[in-house]
């Protein structure tokens, strides 16, 4: 069972300090990620879901140490990567890659795609020019791009094609884990499904695991095997996709599902009204962070943050209703 686990994140925490106010700024703490634990299995797509500011992207970046976590453990194949030094970490990044929402801002506009794709292979001395070319040709074919792509610049491509280029770049070292941060949210529906299908195909061909950071629950339900729902820096519920979508337990998960529009007029219903807005991660409420908006708020919810509770082997929740 445990050999099945590629990545385990334990008690991850990341607080940022920001200055607010003028002319006398005050230092404030943003609890971006607080006590987050989950695991990603081999060849699994693990979804991190939540609304803006919930910390889902920070979790994704922490796993690669693109932001340095304050506390916790990140175990890849059982080895904690947080104590590793720079050069070890650089080697490790071949195993873990990231894809961003907007591929345009992550591709160098003055470089031809061929140069962008070949550079990491040259830096790591992965072969002769001919060998490198062969690796790149193979990957281009895998992501559905023609060889002419190599002689073009990023601006010559549409959003969907640029995302394919970003995927090609992520695949160069044959990673085991790809962190995909909202990879399809900027794309049109017809292109979105092309890219999702490509991710699935590559998962099988390259034995990939994904951490899929997203806000669109419909996409997550289609694509992810297991899902964690985040609210204000914490995971409030996680579990198997089917259980989470069919028997959501946390009131926030239920509210998110009820607010997601369904493309079927027969399902038209008064869209569930969740009052209020997401609080800020600077002034997190006392007790359960969700209690000011929660329709099932009790006395204890105002005082104490609920402990994590596994309802079943594949579904857990942080909510006083289930303790």
């Amino acid at each position, binding site marked *: 069972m445990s050999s099945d686990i590629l990545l385990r994140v334990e008690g991850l925490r990341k607080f940022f300090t920001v200055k607010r106010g003028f002319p006398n700024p005050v230092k404030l703490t943003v609890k971006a990620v607080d006590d987050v634990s989950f695991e990603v299995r081999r060849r699994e797509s693990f979804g991190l879901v939540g*609304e803006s500011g919930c910390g889902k992207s920070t979790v994704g970046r922490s796993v690669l140490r693109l932001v340095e976590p304050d506390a916790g453990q990140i175990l890849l194949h059982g080895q904690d990567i947080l104590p590793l030094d720079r050069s070890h970490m650089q080697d490790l990044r071949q195993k873990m890659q990231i894809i961003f929402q907007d591929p345009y801002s992550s591709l160098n506009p003055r470089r031809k795609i061929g140069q962008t794709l070949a550079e990491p292979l040259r830096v790591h001395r992965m072969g002769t020019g001919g060998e490198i070319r062969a690796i790149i040709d193979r990957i281009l074919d895998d992501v559905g791009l023609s060889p002419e792509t190599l002689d073009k610049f990023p601006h010559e491509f549409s959003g969907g094609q640029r995302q394919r280029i970003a995927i090609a770049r992520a695949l160069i070292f044959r990673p085991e884990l790809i962190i995909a941060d909202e990879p399809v949210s900027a794309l*049109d529906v*017809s292109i979105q499904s092309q890219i999702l*299908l490509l991710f699935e195909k590559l998962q099988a061909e390259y034995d990939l695991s994904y951490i899929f950071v997203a806000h669109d629950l419909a996409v997550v339900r*289609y694509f992810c095997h297991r899902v964690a729902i985040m609210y204000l820096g914490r995971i409030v519920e996680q579990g198997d996709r089917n259980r989470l979508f069919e028997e959501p337990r946390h009131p926030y998960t239920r509210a998110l599902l009820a607010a997601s529009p369904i*493309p079927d*007029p027969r399902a038209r219903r008064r869209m569930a009204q969740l009052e209020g807005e997401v609080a800020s991660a600077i002034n997190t409420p006392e007790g359960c962070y969700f209690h000011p908006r929660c329709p099932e708020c009790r006395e204890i919810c105002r005082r104490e943050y609920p402990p994590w509770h596994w309802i079943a082997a594949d579904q857990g929740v942080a909510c006083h209703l289930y303790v």
Partner: protein
Amino acid sequence: MNQEHLLEVRNLTTAFRIQGNLFPAVRGIDLHLDRNETLALVGESGCGKSITALSIMRLIPQPPGEIVSGEVFMKGIDLLTLPEERMRKIRGNKMAMIFQEPMTSLNPVLTVGFQIMEALIYHQDVTNVKAKELAIEIMNQVKIPSASRRFKDYPHQFSGGQRQRVMIAMALACRPEIILADEPTTALDVTIQAQILYLLAELKREYSMAMIFITHNLGIVASIADRVAVMYGGEIVEVAPVGDLFEKPRHPYTEMLLRAVPRVDLNIEKLSYIPGQVPSIDRMPPGCHYAPRCDLRMELCDRQDADLVPLPGEPAHRVRCWIRGDSREIQDKP
């Protein structure tokens, strides 16, 4: 001219000049809107849905844009022939628009209260005191908490959802008969989106307004629209009552689009996809704009564009397709 419809657009074509040549961004748009109705304009980026709305409002930047032909009748008056001063009396008064990105549409150096009042003072013969009173009233109606205190706040002091409420308040200040909402919830989180959609539906009912709602999200279409117009490559390819469109889509593009959307309420084994990509306006195919991506295409589709014609026995359901539309068309135009 059809007096029955509140708004009727006929054969509207708006073109943009790119390197000296005019290319149509929307072509031959025919649509109408009745009182109390919500018409959804749905399509992917670049399909011309926003250009259609901006053309109706006569807000197309000119140059590079240009309304080449067509008529836009509002209660029998062709807006496209009105002098600009008269159009200004209609815009923001009888017909108002809500944009996607409130932060870029609100003036950051003016208080939100002033920006809501502005329309009232310009369009309606009211004093400043009265305008302020009305502005606070509408801020209450769009459920901005403690409206009279927030009247003096600036846009940056509001959250994204609250800013969109301010935009709605501005648009509704003069109680327009028609609202054009261009992706008003796209930048918002899903729980806030639900609040805004609910608010819009509620206000629309209360004020007996008609609404053109522009979106790319088929889930939103299903939950708010009465009728739907699907756009592709600058043309309307299918129009139908919302139930018909989702239950029996006829245009191959609509059909594929519906099968390519993941759903939050269902497990889908394998998503469908549409190969290729949307053509850009300077490289529009000569025939049917969707033909290069279409499974069903015939030789005729590459040569000539079909007309938007009603299905036999279903006058409200119209399709622009040689195969799925009225088959007599093919015989008429060999």
